[in-house]
């Protein structure tokens, strides 16, 4: 490493009060998961024949995939478009995406009635190219693989030059070291293939996720049902990617007692007005073309939800990101980014749950405590795993090695 800025594991104690709270939430989720796998989906959810999908799809999967968009947007910016100044945020975003998609898959297993058949879409005789869900499933699977491959350099970097096998295995040290080096070099040469593949796969499934509900035109509220849902999902994923990076970076700087990387986040937030503009204008044009604008003023509760989603989640932060004052202030920047995250999360929940109207509805859906517990447990697991990875692998950038040295706090 020749540069004065490089990534290194953060040195601090792993278990704090916050970490124990996460463990408790995970334990509760785990108990409900145990009920789910022994007594069936019906025992821990409010799902029925009218409401086949609940928050496990809307939050665990749809929001999970959207909020992991930081991974491919920063990879595209820093590596494909060579904006090297964004380099420091690539690894944290990648880790979020990798862990985020892992959680998406775990959440999916809870929701699938026959979870043990989850591999079926990979079998050629079962391929169903006509199914949007098939496309989503295959892309998510490939992308998750790509994410783990992109994580590998952090693993080799962590152990390269430090291989110290104990006892009888000691003579192998040199050999393992050599293997690691070879592996690292090979990986470095082909990594660009995976980076581009990751971006393409992301564009594909982020949009297909939006296409999922297009098949239910008669069951969806017209404010949300549109044939351009795939495009809207892709555009909003572009918006939320950088916002997640800003959100995480500032949050992590607090949690790990560091200075927020404003010199990276400020320039990053400059592209947000453009991205948000594309999303907002496409949405407005779509409503106008479909002749549904009048519904915004019809006073129904759906119209209120829609206005809150668009107003607070997209238009307000769009205006905020224009101001240089916002882009310079960690607090304001954090607020604006959080609003977009709120907007996109709300949009996914709206599309999958709020807009859904069963043909013969006799009740409203509200998540069962079991659904909430499992979802919360998964989110806790995500934060827990993130903490573990940044404390043990070179993810976060440190300004110079000296500031990290000599603290002497053992890490997990």
């Amino acid at each position, binding site marked *: 490493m020749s540069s004065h800025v490089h990534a290194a594991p953060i040195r601090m104690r792993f278990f704090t009060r916050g970490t124990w709270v996460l463990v408790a939430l995970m334990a509760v989720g785990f108990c409900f998961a145990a009920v789910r796998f022994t007594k069936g989906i019906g025992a821990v959810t409010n799902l029925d024949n009218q409401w086949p999908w609940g928050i496990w799809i809307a939050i665990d999967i749809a929001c999970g995939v959207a909020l992991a968009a930081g991974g491919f947007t920063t990879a595209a910016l820093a590596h494909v478009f060579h904006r090297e100044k964004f380099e420091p945020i690539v690894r944290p975003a990648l880790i979020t995406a990798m862990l985020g998609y892992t959680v998406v898959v775990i959440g999916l297993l809870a929701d699938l*009635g026959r979870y043990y058949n989850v591999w079926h879409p990979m079998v050629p005789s079962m391929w169903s190219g006509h199914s949007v869900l098939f496309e989503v499933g295959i892309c998510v699977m490939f992308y998750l693989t790509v994410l783990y491959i992109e994580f590998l350099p952090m693993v080799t970097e962590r152990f390269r030059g430090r291989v110290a096998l104990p006892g009888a295995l000691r003579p192998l040290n040199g050999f393992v070291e050599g293997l690691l080096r070879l592996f690292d070099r090979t990986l470095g040469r082909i990594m660009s293939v995976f980076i581009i*593949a990751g*971006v393409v796969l992301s564009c594909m499934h982020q949009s297909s996720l939006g296409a999922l509900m*297009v098949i239910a035109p008669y069951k969806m509220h017209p404010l949300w049902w549109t044939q351009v849902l795939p495009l809207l999902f892709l555009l909003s994923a572009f918006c939320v990617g950088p916002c997640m990076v800003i959100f995480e970076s500032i949050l992590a700087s607090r949690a790990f007692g560091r200075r927020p990387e404003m010199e990276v986040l400020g320039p990053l937030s400059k592209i947000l007005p453009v991205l948000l503009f594309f999303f907002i204008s496409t949405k407005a044009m779509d409503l106008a073309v479909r002749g549904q604008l009048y519904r915004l003023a019809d006073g129904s509760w759906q119209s209120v939800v829609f206005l809150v989603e668009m107003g607070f989640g997209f238009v307000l932060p769009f205006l905020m990101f224009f101001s240089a004052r916002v882009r310079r202030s960690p607090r304001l920047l954090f607020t604006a980014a959080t609003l977009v995250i709120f907007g996109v999360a709300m949009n996914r929940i709206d599309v999958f749950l709020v807009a859904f109207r069963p043909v013969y509805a006799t009740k409203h859906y509200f998540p069962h405590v079991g659904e909430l517990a499992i979802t919360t447990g998964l989110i806790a697991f995500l934060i827990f795993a993130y903490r573990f990875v940044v404390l043990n692998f070179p993810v976060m950038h440190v300004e110079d090695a000296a500031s990290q040295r000599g603290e002497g706090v053992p890490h997990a």
Partner: protein
Amino acid sequence: MDRRDFLKTVGAVGVGIAAADASASTAVHAPPDAFGVLVDTTACIGCRKCEWACNQVNELPVQPLEEFEDKAVFAAMRRPDAGNFTVVNQWPRQEHEGNVWAKVQCLHCNDPACASACLVSALEKQPNGAVKYDPWRCMGCRYCMVACPFQIPAYQYADALSPEVRKCTFCVERISAGERPGCVEICPVECLIYGKREELLSLAHERIGAYPDRYLDHVYGEHEVGGTSWLYIAGQPFPSLGFPELGEQSPARITENIQHGIFRRFIAPVALYATLAQVMWLGSRKDEVAAAAHKAEQHGEEHHE
């Protein structure tokens, strides 16, 4: 990595993706000699014998026939569920005294949204008309339930091990063996007529033509969502009998058109891949040139790692 190597690796991946395009599907057409059932709601007497027969032939929890004679169930509208593939609902008769009854079950769409949604083809339209479910393929994602415009498929939510999607099977084993579906066979008043869908359609229009006072000029299922194997005729508008008002295009066509538009022969993803690769390579060339120039300038001061 030099340019040729780079493009070679990138190209190989592109070809790999394109080869995976084997899954691209073609539009689904109504099978030419599909069977169907014509339900004449003006003939139905609400005896619920079809419900009983359906439970019998499908080995659903069977209660004695007498229990199905209970008319109290008509107080509320019922929907088919995992243990009852068909139910009869009672509706007030318009412009006359009395009631009308309408049997509900899967309509076995010509271009079923449920089958289009399924990611492992666990639901498939058979040449004989039945939309058949294969539990061994199913993953239990319940996307078929989201997709069905008639809210038909039901799920065994209480089963932890091998829950199934449940719906009318069109008695596929019976009809393959040349028999009539259980519900049709038992119907005492010929409210249910089984036959080739094409012939049933002509029969329906004949009846409507012969008794214009008795029937509305609308065969429900002739055009709805691309047509269905089960057809209905009635003396009053279908929404008053609990049927949803639907357009003529199957929802499957809308999504599949988008899907095929974007992924046709994988042109769009491959093009995106190639473009990004080009951008990336051009950028890295520029960086290399800049770095080389930088290095040349600082030659001597720079120490090696």
